């Protein structure tokens, strides 16, 4: 096991990793910019090194500074957290080249999954389903009809050379196919000088469902079930659940088996997340994140696992030590991301926290590096806390989250807590009846209302 881990991150995730290290008896090195000198993770770390000025590129993205910090403190491993250098293959490579352990996948796999096209073709080859459609360009309208009939309407005709929405037409029914076909080709020719088009099933009401995977260096791969992260605004997740209100245990088992089999064949290592669009019982792989996710706590709550601990153990060469059938899914968990943003306009609101009082009690977990008197710096992400609850059922979890939000006091900066309250009261949300478009619409209604 490692004796000292450098945490190449900041904020709540630095504290999250620090907590796991401390419980494992591993010493910690915090690195920080001059803007984070007073941060909680810096104060709680065994050692702290200032690695640069506030701008991320000069501090949290500064590979040389982080490696120097690891060298002078004698750290034997680096945990990158999420964001910053966590999916930087060159960083992972450099870390290992310096004789330190990178707590994450190999540089090769980071690079592979960082290229979205390569990621998709790799996963397809490994048996993971993508959005169904034609295998490349269509020969004719007749072929388009055949494929569309197979994948089901609505379908999307897309320019092979396309991008930015040009040369892209939806055909809601078969009657609309011919027109979509010809308009898409005309647009494609005009825009790209190439009228080749292909066809995909059009997911008009998909959910964002992702699967948490863990692989050790001994060929064992397990999954910890899914998270439903459909509640997004401008591709920023705001509220996540485990499990998804849309999935059955059997569906989970099936996609889990496909994913673990794929990653076993790939020889993947450490934590990873397969992201899918999900609609009408169909999973469509969109990308893989080769790191810990922000929303990992909801998985921890329902699987009774410490994912950061598992990452560290695996990076140290330990086997997972249990099999898929040992992983039980119990209860329901919800995470609300608390951002320092105006709940109406989403303008970031950096400033000084004058009062901080987190909720407590049964089934409530807070992952946050806030404290009363802390200045939320304007240089980084606006997420300042994650409030996670677990309860035996989804409805109980919703009620628990509501009462926890009601107890949560953060003064000095505006936060999105009022928005979360409204979401949790919404009848559609309570039924679990939402897609990736739901939150944008909900927010628009709130702004009008």
């Amino acid at each position, binding site marked *: 096991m490692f004796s000292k881990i450098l945490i190449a991150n900041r904020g709540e995730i630095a504290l999250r990793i620090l907590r796991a290290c401390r419980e494992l008896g591993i010493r910690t090195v915090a690195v920080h910019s*001059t803007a984070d000198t*007073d941060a*909680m993770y*810096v*104060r*709680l*770390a*065994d*050692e*702290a*090194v*200032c*690695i*640069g*000025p506030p701008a991320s590129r000069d*501090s949290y993205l500064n590979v*040389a*500074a982080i*490696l*120097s*910090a690891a060298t*002078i*403190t004698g750290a034997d491993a680096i945990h990158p957290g999420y964001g910053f250098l966590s999916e930087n293959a060159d960083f992972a490579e450099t870390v290992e080249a310096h004789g330190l352990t990178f707590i994450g996948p190999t540089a090769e796999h980071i690079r592979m999954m960082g290229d979205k096209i390569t990621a998709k073709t790799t996963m397809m080859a490994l048996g993971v389903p993508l959005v169904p459609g034609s295998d490349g360009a269509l020969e004719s309208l007749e072929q388009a009809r055949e494929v569309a009939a197979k994948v089901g309407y609505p379908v999307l005709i897309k320019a092979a050379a396309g991008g930015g929405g040009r040369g892209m037409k939806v055909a809601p029914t078969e009657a609309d196919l011919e027109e979509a076909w010809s308009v898409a080709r005309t647009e494609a020719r005009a825009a790209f000088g190439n009228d080749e088009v292909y066809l995909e099933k059009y997911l008009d009401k998909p959910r964002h469902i992702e699967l948490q995977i863990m692989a050790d260096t001994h060929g064992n791969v397990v999954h910890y079930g899914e998270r439903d992260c459909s509640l997004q605004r401008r591709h920023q997740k705001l509220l996540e659940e485990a499990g998804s209100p849309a999935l059955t245990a059997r569906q989970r088992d099936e996609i889990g088996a496909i994913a673990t089999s794929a990653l076993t064949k790939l020889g993947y290592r450490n934590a990873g997340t397969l992201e899918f669009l999900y609609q009408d019982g169909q999973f469509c792989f969109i990308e893989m994140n080769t790191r810990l996710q922000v929303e990992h706590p909801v998985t921890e709550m329902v699987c009774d696992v410490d994912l950061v601990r598992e990452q560290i153990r695996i990076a140290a060469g330990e086997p997972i030590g249990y099999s898929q059938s040992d992983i039980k899914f119990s209860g329901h968990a919800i995470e609300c991301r608390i951002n320092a943003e105006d709940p109406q306009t989403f303008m970031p609101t950096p400033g*000084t926290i004058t009062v*901080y009082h987190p909720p407590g009690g049964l089934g409530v977990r807070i992952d946050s590096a806030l*404290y*009363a*008197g*802390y*200045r939320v710096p304007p240089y980084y992400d606006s997420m300042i806390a994650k409030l996670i609850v677990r309860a035996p059922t989804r409805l109980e979890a919703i009620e628990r989250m509501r009462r926890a939000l009601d107890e949560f006091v953060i003064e000095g900066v505006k936060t999105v807590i009022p928005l979360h309250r409204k979401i949790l009261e919404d009848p559609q949300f309570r039924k679990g009846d939402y897609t990736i478009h739901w939150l944008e619409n909900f927010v628009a209604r709130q702004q009008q209302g």
Partner: protein
Amino acid sequence: MSRLLVDADAIRALAEILTDTGLTEIEIAEKDNRIRVVRAAAPVAHAVPAPAPVAAAPVAPTPVAPPAAHPADLSKHPGAVTSPMVGVAYLAPDPSSPAFVSEGQQVVAGQTLLLIEAMKTFNQIKAPRAGTVSRILVQSGDPVEFGEALVIIE
């Protein structure tokens, strides 16, 4: 002009009143005489309105021990030359050579003061302006962090 008569007792008394009352200024004039005592807000420790920002932060059970233990506030010294990077300081080009500079020495702008090794690269730290090296705050082999004071030039 006759020597000014300092009424120390009166001043001490006024200072005591300042402390007791939390005042920041007292001025007394009688005919041609005038006494005015002021205590600026900042140095009056107990007048600092919000100790919370510091007090509220959880204290590390193991005290935070950055690799170098120089007083942090020296980096705020007007003559401080601070480290532009994390690394290891060296006062001489190699162990057998004399140090680039020594305390008390005059330096010109651009003169090499020491080296910082980072990622197997030695980076020259040069004097930003001419002056006298009043203090050298690191020793060869010391780890240094970003922004840490290395040398004071006055």
